[in-house]
């Protein structure tokens, strides 16, 4: 399928609108003020006080598969929702409707993500989705997407548990390219019958011990079953970051994650549950500085390709 025509570009006005919304909805202006105070910068009235200074980045979003007749309008609604909630950027993948994904299936999805990056420049960043079982095609696709097309990470779903050797070449390539892997995950005490090879926080911790240089993100702690279990399973795996997304709004989740893992290991996401994603961060009893890290600072660091 051919990429669609570009849609209206982000103007200065719309960018400022997003950023102002961020200060209102997420309260990150205060976080920026705290950061500035710590660095000795003035509190306001200078260019460095620009509300666009710290980006709010949703680490877990999806554009729509084009088998959905309303995909284009629905993609636009996602951007509009981000505008309303003050989310500056969305890190997106598209998954095949049926899994395990074929190579043709994930290649097609990634072309559509690339098209989304063009339609919403500066707002959509791409994860390259692959099925590790398609070894050669998967590795080539990641090189193409990250190397040539500007994708910022890799998305793995549930085709394989992340501790299976078939996944290792993907992790090794992610390390070589210095990009994060957002890995679907969940831990339930009643098995996910439709996902026999789903990974959980414990699997990701094991993978991280095998590859301490890998930048791993454990997906949707608020939509992946027993979140207390997941947080505790990740305690001693400092290479694994925790994505706060999901539809479950249980009070205390973010505070426990920050207490056990540290706010530096939490990355804000919605996974399309937009008000849940933003609301739980707004409601969490954390300092504004920690919230600013979770909302954008941590993932911005993860997305930097240059090794520090």
């Amino acid at each position: 399928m051919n990429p669609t025509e570009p849609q209206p570009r982000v103007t200065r006005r719309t960018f400022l609108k997003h950023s102002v919304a961020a200060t209102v909805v997420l309260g990150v202006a205060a976080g920026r003020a705290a950061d500035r105070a710590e660095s000795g910068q003035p509190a306001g009235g200078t260019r460095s006080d620009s509300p666009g200074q710290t980006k709010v980045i949703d680490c877990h979003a999806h554009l729509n598969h084009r088998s959905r007749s309303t995909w284009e309008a629905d993609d636009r609604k996602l951007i509009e929702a981000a505008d309303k909630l003050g989310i500056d950027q969305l890190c997106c993948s598209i998954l095949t409707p049926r899994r395990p994904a074929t190579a043709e299936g994930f290649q097609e999805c990634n072309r559509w993500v690339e098209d989304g990056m063009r339609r919403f420049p500066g707002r959509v960043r791409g994860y390259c989705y692959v099925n590790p079982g398609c070894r050669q095609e998967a590795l080539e696709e990641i090189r193409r997407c990250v190397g040539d097309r500007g994708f910022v990470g890799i998305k793995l779903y549930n085709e394989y548990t992340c501790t299976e050797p078939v996944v290792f070449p993907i992790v090794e390539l992610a390390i070589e390219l210095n990009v994060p892997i957002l890995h679907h995950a969940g831990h339930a005490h009643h098995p996910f019958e439709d996902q026999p090879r789903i990974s959980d926080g414990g699997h990701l911790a094991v993978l991280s011990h095998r590859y301490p240089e890998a930048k791993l993100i454990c997906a949707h702690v608020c939509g992946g079953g027993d979140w207390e279990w997941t947080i505790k399973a990740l305690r001693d795996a400092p290479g694994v970051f925790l994505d706060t997304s999901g539809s479950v709004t249980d009070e205390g989740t973010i505070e426990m994650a920050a207490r056990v893992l540290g706010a530096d290991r939490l990355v804000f996401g919605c996974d399309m549950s937009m008000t849940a994603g933003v609301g739980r961060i707004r409601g969490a009893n954390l300092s504004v500085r920690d919230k600013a890290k979770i909302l954008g600072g941590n993932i911005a660091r993860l997305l930097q390709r240059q090794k520090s």
Partner: protein
Amino acid sequence: MIIDVNAYLGHFAFRQLRHNTAASLLLWMDAKPIDKAVVSSASAITYRNAQAGNEEIFEEVKSHRDRLLPFAVLNPFYAGWQDDLRICHEDFGMSGLRLYPKWHNYQLSDRCCLDLVNGATERRMVISIPVRVEDNRQQSWLANVPDVPLEELAALVKACPQARFILLNGLGFANSPLGRKDNGLPANYLIEISRLSALLDNEIGQLIARLGAERLVLGTGMPFSYPDPALLKLEVLPASKEDKEKIGWQNVAQWLRF
């Protein structure tokens, strides 16, 4: 003004709850701000004798009745529910119920349940039914409790046209008879919004268009849930200020005669 129709006090068997005393919940409400809340016992969800939870709630909110409105949790299959209903209404001044058919192991269509609904309706009490207590993906190995299907709720509101229901913690109403215009159902139920979307497919907006804003109410699920997501839905909802006022407090104030 904000009134929350979906709040709780006490302990839950499978997860630690914070802000779960009257004093701490009120402090939390002040911070949001939420003016008033309908509360019931979280403990009564798993107590065999739910009335013990109602007694705890009655004591807990005694000096806060201006802001915390207690509802009773009753199990129509447990001995003495008729006495408990009378005590909760007459002695404890509770103006509504919360029912947990899946947790308490009965069907909404069971005769006993209909007797309880009718008994409460005769007392002009409101009956609220949470579709779920917690996400079933995270339930304990000891509990595997399904959500209450919307079709069972639809059958109940139809079977009891004189009763007044508030449907809590639900989702997918827009694809169910409960969310359709001209659905053949009495207009005897309100839908609480805590799990409905306000953006993307905007289920709340769909329900406003079909049923009217008069049929929706704000609930947060606190302290099980952060109240902020539900409050945020109301903030970002593409709806008129008047409709948001109805959802945020007017509808429930009218039903509960605040």
